[in-house]
């Protein structure tokens, strides 16, 4: 091992770009279609294939280096190019331009249980999946017992996996992946699987891998996971590296990027919507009516949409969809003031629908809000704007009633409502006096 080589970055990405064709139908094409097109109108077909707007750059001139042993989080909104980057690093798809140098073997986990076959037993699938992930048979033999133990499906090892519950399936699949032992590990958001206990186990395993001096690239939407696992991060935005550096700084840049950071969006042109209703503005407000991106867990949060009905006699209802940072839908709430059985019809004009999420409803997490306007009879969606705004709910711990007094550890769950509790002594119970 020469010293110079050791000091070289383990991954060097230079001017990496990836272009996708977004023709009329880019995934599925029949021979006759393309033949007919080419025969009928050869010039047009040629022209179309050179048309610039038929293509889309998923990544554009991406440059970065990763040092040996670095654990890097890759963050960005949906469509920012994270998955494309991982796919190129895993050699699943090829770059259009640029070059990557990797000075170590790559193992990638873009999905758990790739190649699992329902008819095969757990044992057979461990071997097959291991081989697919690039393990040698000898390696799998060595780790077999550990894999089985980690998965907790010892008893069903010779049962076809189609008889497994979905939880068992996922646990087995992750366990194989967890024992993958390459120099560079590329992980897509595969940890969002299984029950909470297993997730915790997986996270522990990931931490172990990270501390073991291996280079890890980790894509996630879950900021708390990124900040606990990774010391540095890369923020991708529309195919470009927007920020690269210490995790905290990059996460901040992510959360504050774009206009969302102001807690409101006002559409001055290109209003989302159809010919009947359009969205004018979306806001997340505190109790004083100021737009916010952060709130204390014990403060009320108000969501508001301003929209215009372009037609008379509409029976629409506003609705908000709230997702947590894991991408999990937490709940949907719709305008309950309007009762459609009463045939309430509204005149054309501008309206505001505002909803209050009471204090102590959401947990401490980042929540993304989808703004939608829907017609029921007949069912019609006028607009559905996903993840327009977000709010980060903070738990200052001190003085928060929804956690046990004196306890400062994590409070898991999608929501953390403050519910009504009672405490009393049961009657006619011999233990009753124990209280």
């Amino acid at each position, binding site marked *: 091992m020469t010293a110079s*080589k050791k000091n070289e970055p383990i991954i060097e990405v230079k001017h990496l770009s990836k272009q996708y064709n977004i023709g009329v139908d880019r995934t599925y094409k029949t021979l006759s279609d*393309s033949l007919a097109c080419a025969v009928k109108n050869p010039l047009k077909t040629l022209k179309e294939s050179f048309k610039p707007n038929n293509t889309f750059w998923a990544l554009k001139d991406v440059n970065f280096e990763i040092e040996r042993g670095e654990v890097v989080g890759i963050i960005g909104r949906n469509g920012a190019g994270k998955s494309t980057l991982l796919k190129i690093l895993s050699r*699943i798809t090829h770059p*259009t331009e640029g*070059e990557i140098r990797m000075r170590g073997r790559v193992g990638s986990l873009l999905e758990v249980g790739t*190649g699992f076959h329902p*008819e095969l037993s757990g044992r057979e699938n461990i*071997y097959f999946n291991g*081989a697919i992930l690039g393990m040698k048979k000898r390696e799998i033999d060595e780790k077999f017992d550990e894999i089985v133990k980690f998965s907790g499906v010892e008893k069903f090892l010779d049962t076809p996996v189609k008889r497994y519950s979905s939880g068992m399936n996922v646990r087995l699949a992750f366990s194989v992946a967890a024992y993958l*032992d390459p120099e560079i590990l590329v992980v897509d958001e595969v940890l969002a699987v299984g029950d909470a206990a297993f997730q915790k186990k997986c996270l522990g395993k990931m931490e172990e891998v990270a501390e073991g001096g291996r280079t890890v690239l980790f894509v996630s939407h879950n900021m708390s996971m990124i900040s606990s696992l990774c010391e540095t991060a890369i923020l991708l935005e529309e195919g470009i590296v927007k920020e690269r550096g210490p995790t905290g700084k990059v996460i901040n840049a992510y959360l504050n990027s774009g206009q969302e950071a102001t807690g409101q969006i006002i559409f001055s042109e290109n209003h989302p919507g159809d010919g009947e209703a359009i969205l004018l503005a979306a806001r997340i407000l505190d109790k004083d009516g100021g737009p916010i991106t952060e709130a204390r867990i014990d403060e009320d949060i108000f969501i508001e949409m301003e929209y215009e009905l372009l037609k008379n006699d509409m029976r629409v209802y506003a609705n908000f969809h709230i997702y947590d940072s894991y991408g999990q839908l937490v709940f949907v709430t719709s305008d309950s003031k309007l009762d459609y059985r009463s045939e309430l019809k509204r005149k054309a004009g501008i309206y505001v629908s505002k909803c209050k999420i009471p204090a102590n409803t959401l947990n401490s997490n980042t929540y993304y809000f989808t703004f939608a306007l829907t017609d029921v009879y007949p069912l019609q969606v006028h607009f559905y704007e996903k993840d327009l705004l977000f709010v980060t709910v903070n738990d200052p711990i001190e003085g928060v009633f929804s956690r046990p007094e004196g306890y400062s550890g994590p409070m898991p769950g999608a929501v953390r409502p403050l519910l009504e509790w009672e405490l009393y002594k049961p009657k006619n119970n011999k233990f009753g006096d124990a209280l």
Partner: protein
Amino acid sequence: MTEHPTDYELIIRPKYGLLDLNWQELKEYRELLFFLALREIKIRYKQTLMGASWALLQPLFTMIIFTLIFGRLAQIPSEGIPYPIFSYSGLLIWTYFSNALSQSSNSLVGNGNLLSKVYMPRIFIPTASCLAGIIDYGIAMSILAVMMVYYRLVPNITILLLPVIVVLTFMLASGMGYWLSSICVKYRDVKFILPFFIQMLMFVSPVIYPTDIVGEKLQWLLYLNPLTGLIDAHRACILGHTPVDFVSISISTVLTIVIFLSGILYLKHTEKDFADLI
């Protein structure tokens, strides 16, 4: 994997080259080829009542039907040996070839998640389908052995050619499989054309009739089909009823190698887009 950490360097660049075979990598992943083939073998007859005996029954039933129709009704000649064993020996290798071809042609699309979620030599997927079929061929061979005892046919020294013929048939099925499976990723039409293509191929191959049934003048046309030499030689070397025709097997060998190598090149050339198209 951690034994040689530093001398390893992988460069990922846009792919343009035509000749881009990475033998080192194929060698490194060879166990996966074995696992893929094993998986195919294991799942093929899962949840069937008859299990692997289907490998016997498929050519057996076809032989019975063909014997009734072509042997009895149409009175097709059979190179001086009983028609049942004549057709079975042809069907044996034909069944292997046609199953291998249809499975390998659909293999890339059928394993879409392997293409889009992991990296591995894509060429192994159609290859494994063709490898797995050899087991079925071996099982079905037992019936031929029984028939040979019954009809008192003894193979001669040319039976040593049998492994070569099986390997050539495997290469032919794989080569065509490489072409068709790669095309199928982009144009699913292949799925619909394939059954007709295979059926047509059977009628232009000497499975149910001997080559000399076609007039001398047109026989060369038959030899353009690489299967002709393979099926004839397969039959002759096992049954020993007629000498192996080395001219036709040579033609078949050349054609097979051309199809096999061009198939590899075509698959290698198109594979960079598989994950984006699937």
